[in-house]
């Protein structure tokens, strides 16, 4: 031990404090960066027979892998349920009038005007109000159907955007991961790169649910939450073809990862998290069911108002009919031209029969008080009918009840989606807070650390002054 070694120790302490200072200031600078992981100086002490030296060997990253993965998982779940809930919310822009209400009340108005016409069949104005109610109902159904198609197309486009984003992230990630692996193998500081990769993983998990597996030299492999490889050494291809039309009966296309379907109808390994899962659920389940409900409504309307040929059991479309052609029924639904005065038709055909020609006329005496057919339609409108189970509501009910049930179905689905989304969002935010508390920066702590470093620095400097003085004393004595 000597004065020289004391001087050396004080010197090394000053150097180490500067390094610590640099690390602390890096932490402070990133206090508000959500993707930053706090680093702490790792201070080493070497003791030799000539003295001891302190130095900062490296900055260690305060990671919490479990909390990070939990955040990724709950984040992708929150995005999935959130995007699904938002899709349903968009169908219901006004909180007071749930989707489908207008159809249900349109059927009610049709029934009302039908009764009024049947009670006063000589009054053409009453007949016109039946036609008006029918036209309004048709317009409303078409509008609802278009809203659903738009929503499905939007979901489809969102899936496309998500796939583009995934491919971009995966290719970027390939580069970053490579640098981390080679840097780690060479013993370089890869903390910044790892922060960058964590951020990429977060964004990736927002698009698609993922599982992250650590590999040697800080490398990672990434799988979808259903187990399909997205990235292992190299990025796998994620592909998706946007649909051109998504009317009732049109199925959306699948999202393929490495050739395996992970989202879309009949996917073999369906993902549960991320925007893709949420949009696929809307596009392929809820909205498909709702389109089915509208189709069933249109079908029932046509059936209710069918005419019977006098004296036979032959039937033909009456007040409502479908345009010829293929595709969904709602888009082809219309009020029969023969009864619509706006199209040159005659309202009286509805009362007397004969929309499909004289053979279908029942009021052969042309009595203006004849209301048997009108009352027949009203009875048919209020009779129980059978609906397709795919419409997901009671299969046996009147058309009006069916329409009301579809309103219930939608609101129940939306309520559930909103509740799930709130739960998932709060699970995510508490996970994210936990992660941030564990690996993020607390300015108070950092400032306090700065104070300690400062004190230690001035103590070391003071030590050097003292040693210097002692040297001077010694040298003065020798002179």
């Amino acid at each position: 031990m000597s004065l020289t070694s004391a001087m050396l120790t004080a010197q090394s302490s000053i150097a180490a404090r500067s390094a610590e200072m640099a690390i602390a200031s890096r932490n402070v600078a990133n206090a508000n960066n959500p993707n930053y992981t706090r680093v702490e100086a790792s201070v080493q002490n070497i003791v030799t027979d000539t003295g001891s030296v302190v130095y900062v060997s490296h900055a260690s990253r305060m990671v919490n892998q479990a909390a990070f993965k939990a955040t990724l998982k709950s984040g992708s779940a929150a995005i999935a349920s959130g995007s699904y809930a938002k899709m349903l919310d968009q169908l219901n822009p006004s909180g007071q009038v749930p989707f489908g209400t207008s159809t249900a009340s349109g059927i009610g108005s049709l029934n009302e005007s039908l009764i009024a016409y049947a009670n006063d069949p000589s009054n053409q104005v009453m007949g016109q109000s039946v036609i008006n109610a029918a036209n309004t109902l048709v317009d409303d159904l078409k509008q609802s159907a278009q809203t659903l198609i738009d929503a499905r197309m939007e979901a489809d486009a969102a899936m496309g955007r998500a796939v583009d984003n995934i491919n971009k992230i995966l290719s970027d990630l390939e580069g970053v991961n490579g640098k981390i692996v080679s840097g780690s193998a060479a013993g370089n500081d890869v903390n910044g790169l790892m922060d960058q990769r964590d951020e990429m993983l977060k964004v990736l998990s927002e698009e698609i649910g993922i599982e992250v597996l650590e590999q040697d030299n800080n490398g990672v492999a990434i799988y979808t939450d259903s187990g399909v490889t997205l990235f292992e050494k190299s990025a796998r291809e994620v592909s998706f073809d946007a649909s051109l039309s998504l009317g009732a009966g049109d199925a959306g296309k699948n999202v393929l990862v490495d050739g395996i379907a992970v989202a879309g109808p009949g996917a073999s390994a369906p993902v549960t998290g991320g925007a893709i899962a949420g949009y696929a659920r809307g596009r392929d389940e809820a909205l498909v069911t709702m389109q089915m409900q509208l189709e069933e409504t249109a079908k029932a309307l046509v059936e209710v108002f069918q005419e019977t040929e006098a004296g036979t059991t032959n039937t033909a479309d009456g007040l409502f009919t479908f345009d010829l052609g293929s595709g969904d029924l709602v888009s082809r639904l219309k009020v029969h031209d023969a009864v619509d005065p706006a199209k040159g038709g005659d309202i009286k055909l509805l009362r007397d029969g004969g929309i499909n020609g004289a053979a279908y006329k029942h009021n052969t005496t042309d009595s203006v008080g004849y209301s048997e057919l009108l009352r027949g339609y009203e009875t048919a409108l209020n009779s129980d009918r059978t609906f397709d189970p795919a419409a997901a509501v009671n299969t046996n009910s009147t058309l009006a009840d069916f329409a009301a049930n579809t309103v219930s179905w939608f609101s129940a689905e939306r309520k559930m989606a909103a509740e799930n989304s709130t739960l998932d969002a709060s699970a995510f935010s508490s996970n994210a807070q936990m992660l941030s508390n564990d690996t993020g920066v607390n300015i108070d702590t950092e400032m306090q650390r700065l104070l300690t470093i400062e004190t230690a620095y001035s103590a070391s400097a003071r030590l050097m002054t003292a040693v210097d003085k002692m040297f001077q004393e010694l040298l003065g004595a020798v002179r």
Partner: protein
Amino acid sequence: MVYSVSTLTSTLRLTNYLIDNRARLDNAVIENASKKHADMGLTLGAQTGTTTSFRSEFSQYESQLDTNKQLITRLDVMNTALDNVHTSSSDFRSDLVALQSNSDSLKTASNLAYTELSKLTNALNTNVSGVYVFGGINTGTAPVTNFADGPEAAIETVFGTYFGHGIDDAATGSIPVSGDPNGKDWETFLQSAVFKDIFGANWTTHWSSATDEKMTSTIESGVTTDGSGSANEEAFGQLAEGLSIVAVFGKLDLSVEAEKFITNQAVNSLNTGVDGTISIEAQNGAIKTNVERTNASILAKQNVLNIRINDLENIDENRAAIELSLAQTQLEATYAITAKIQGLNIMKYL
């Protein structure tokens, strides 16, 4: 272990509280202003369809009440018409009975009978805004033909065919009251099918274009009732018969016995006719009462529906007011905390 909070978390948490409380306040404001749930679908969930169908049921009742009001108007008009028919017919019958003892009285009565006949046709041709209420289902045209425009000629033709001479022929005066071996007497003629059929089987040929079938009106979902009358009721035929006998034959120069007999025949027909009219009127009144009772029950049902809709859709105003003030307090507290925490900064103390 020391619980540590990162600076980022504490900032974000405050932001989240602010957003949350702001949204809660917004909701409370909407609910207080509209007195209904801010988001019906989210609050009611699977029950949303119930209020939808309650609402359309409610408006169904509303429009049913409107058409029922029209029906009641129609029934009222029918009632007035029937009332006129039966009072004036029975007054005429009383006049006939009183005049019986007076000679030449039948000629006076004959003139009156023509007036009564036009009163009868007029009453049966009543219409309410274009709907001829006694037309059966043929409500577009006046159902009963004026006496002078067909029925009178038909009676004279039948008379001519039966007796072999015109009604104004001198031979008419010598037709016996009864007992003619060939049946060429008043009694047999007035009871004969050819004469009776004018007011019975051939009523629709000579008098009426109405149908027997009446309009059916729906007064409540699934409940129907007659919504019009028919001029083809038997009672109207009997009234017409009584009045026609006096009108056509009363003006002729007949023996006193024949006049007496004809008067008796007419009174008989009028008696059954008036009775029949009264019973039609009673039936009509019963229908009207029924519709009114239905209306009352519809109103009661509407009230129940209204209460149920309010139950489902409306918020509790007291609760909403409290929620609003709570949300306000909460938001103010959050603002205060935000400001405080912003001030709590180690830098100020270094």
